């Protein structure tokens, strides 16, 4: 068991990576074996993430130097700084890892029936595994260059899966996604070059120790903040989201949301860990709050007139990202002040808790949209109606997802939103009022979807979706209800350690030695 825990950081990246390369081979042998192999790998990754999470929450951060005989030796004997690929996983990193692994597992199970045979399903699983590699890599790496590498893996694999349906609009969505992702990746690469040129370092902890916040560092900061804020779908750089989310297969849209959150994590990691108190936290915190407010408001108001169910949900994904930016931005705004300990940490808890909640209910909502598309072959809400007569389970899953995203108790969305409302109120009541208004509008737009798709007389003679799709939705529904019923348990044991890992820069820096 000790061996497994020690090597699990590397295994979590290597296992899906190697499986991705094996997948086409297994696909040639047998379709059943391929499906079984994909599900087993995602289950193993989920188990490994949980094992690692339990150990990190109990014993603290894990550090792993890839290629070193002793993986705990991050600095080689002939060097004075870490020069290998170092993975550094704290409570925040593993928190994000749990989200990524769970969403990908649900997407994999859901895709068993959702994705048709004969359209390169083997390639589909290969790319899904690569998406998982990209996300886990971004969340686990302690090296800024590898952050860029995993960001690219995530972007390219995601773009390839957005275009999976091979229709004109899918190609357009994927093209936009790829162009904008490539530009942001170049921004990150340019920042990496600036850091390397200035400090001869790539390790995040060592960079953070040495960073002086010079003009060069300010340029790098501007590039990193805008690149990651764009990729997480922050307004006004969110335009690619509705175009890409609406055309991707629904299981992939759910993983795209998790991918966006990996970028959100990278944004927070850059602000809190790489720069920390050396930068003007009030300014960057203020920028994050403005991004948050704009995303919340524009996202939800643009969702209301949509007729395409997935496009509507895509705008909601933007809106919900706003809550996370608001919560964590408020925390960053107060960093270094006495108020940070009083309500800054609480605001961050709300924002971070909302990340996992959003991944679950938004993932579920996209899967229900996929279930509707699977039966009706349309995303147009005007062509739907009366689905609750025959698709009973999907209707229930949709209601749970919709109530959770609207922040209705006792579902998980309410728990995190309540923390955000109450804590940001201390900074400015206006922030809370806008957040509550956005929740009301969210509920309104989901009432529209529920009414037009599920209510009314029976128009379509359709059956319920296959069991594997119901199981995929069921996994996320269970998490939503569990998190909603026991929020304090999740906040105390999972969210608070993640917040403290992010907020206390010294812990991250000291773990790597030197």
């Amino acid at each position, binding site marked *: 068991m000790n061996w497994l825990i020690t090597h699990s950081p590397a295994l979590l990246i290597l296992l899906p990576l190697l499986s991705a390369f094996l997948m086409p081979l297994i696909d040639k042998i047998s379709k059943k074996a391929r499906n079984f192999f994909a599900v087993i790998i995602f289950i193993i990754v989920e188990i490994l993430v949980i094992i690692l999470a339990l150990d990190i929450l109990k014993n603290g951060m894990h550090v792993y130097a890839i290629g070193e005989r002793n993986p705990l030796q991050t600095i080689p004997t002939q060097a004075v700084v870490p020069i290998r690929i170092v993975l550094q996983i704290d409570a925040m990193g593993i928190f994000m890892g749990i989200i990524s692994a769970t969403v990908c597992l649900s997407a994999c199970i859901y895709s068993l029936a959702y994705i048709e045979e004969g359209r390169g399903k083997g390639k589909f699983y290969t790319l899904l595994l690569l998406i998982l590699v990209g996300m886990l890599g971004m969340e686990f790496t302690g090296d800024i260059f590898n952050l860029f590498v995993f960001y690219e893996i995530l972007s390219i694999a995601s773009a390839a899966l957005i275009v999976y349906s091979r229709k004109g609009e899918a190609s357009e969505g994927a*093209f*936009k996604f790829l*162009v*904008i992702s490539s*530009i*942001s990746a170049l*921004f990150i690469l340019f920042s990496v070059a600036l850091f390397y040129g200035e400090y001869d370092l790539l390790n995040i902890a060592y960079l953070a120790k040495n960073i002086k916040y010079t*003009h060069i560092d*300010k*340029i790098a*900061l*501007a*590039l990193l903040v*805008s690149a990651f*804020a*764009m990729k997480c779908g922050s307004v*006004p*750089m969110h*335009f*690619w989201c509705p*175009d890409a989310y609406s055309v991707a297969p629904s299981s992939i849209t759910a993983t795209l949301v998790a991918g966006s959150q990996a970028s959100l994590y990278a944004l927070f990691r850059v602000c809190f860990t790489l720069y920390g108190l050396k930068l*003007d936290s009030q*300014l960057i915190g203020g*920028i994050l709050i403005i991004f948050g407010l704009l995303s919340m408001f*524009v996202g939800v*108001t*643009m969702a*209301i*007139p949509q*007729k395409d169910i997935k496009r509507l949900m895509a705008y909601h994904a933007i809106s919900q990202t706003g809550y996370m930016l608001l919560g964590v931005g408020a925390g960053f705004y107060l960093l270094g002040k006495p108020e940070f*300990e*009083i*309500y800054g*940490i*609480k605001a961050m808890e709300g924002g971070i808790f909302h990340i996992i909640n959003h991944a679950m209910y938004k993932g579920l909502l996209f899967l229900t949209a996929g279930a509707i598309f699977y039966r009706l072959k349309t995303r147009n*809400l*005007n062509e*739907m*109606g*009366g689905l609750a007569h025959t698709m009973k389970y999907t209707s229930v899953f949709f209601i749970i997802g919709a109530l959770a995203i609207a922040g209705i*108790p*006792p579902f998980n969305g309410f*728990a995190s939103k*309540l*923390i955000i409302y*109450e804590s940001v109120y201390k900074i400015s009541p206006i922030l809370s009022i806008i957040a509550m208004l956005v929740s009301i509008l969210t509920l*309104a*737009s989901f009432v*529209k*979807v529920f*009414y*037009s*798709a599920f209510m*009314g*007389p029976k*128009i379509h003679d359709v059956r319920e979706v296959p069991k594997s799709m119901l199981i995929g939705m069921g996994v996320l529904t269970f998490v939503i209800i569990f998190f*909603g*019923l026991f*929020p*304090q348990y999740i906040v105390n044991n999972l969210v608070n350690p993640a917040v403290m890992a992010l907020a206390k820069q010294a812990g991250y820096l000291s773990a790597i030695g030197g």
Partner: protein
Amino acid sequence: MYEIVWEPIIWIISFVIITITVYIIRAIGRVDYRGGEEEKPFLSGMEAPKEKMHISASNVYWGFIDALKGYYNSMKKIHSGVINDYVSWFMLITAIIFISLFLYGVIK
């Protein structure tokens, strides 16, 4: 540290109690007030086909969207669907962050 108290279990118990109360009140109502003419939708005395009774998504919240026509028109212009515009916004925001970082440093 600032504490936020939220007990979902108590909320659920309250919800169940309220539901039971509503059900009891409903149950003591008139039993014969079901299944008659009064249940049919009012369409000026016309018999409407069941399929036509469903209101489609475009008609929901039309008043809200119409009232905010100005806002939505400007939003539609911004959401042009053209990749060049997306990249322009991205560059513009990067430039704004960049300038704010420098100006804030100078002012401070």
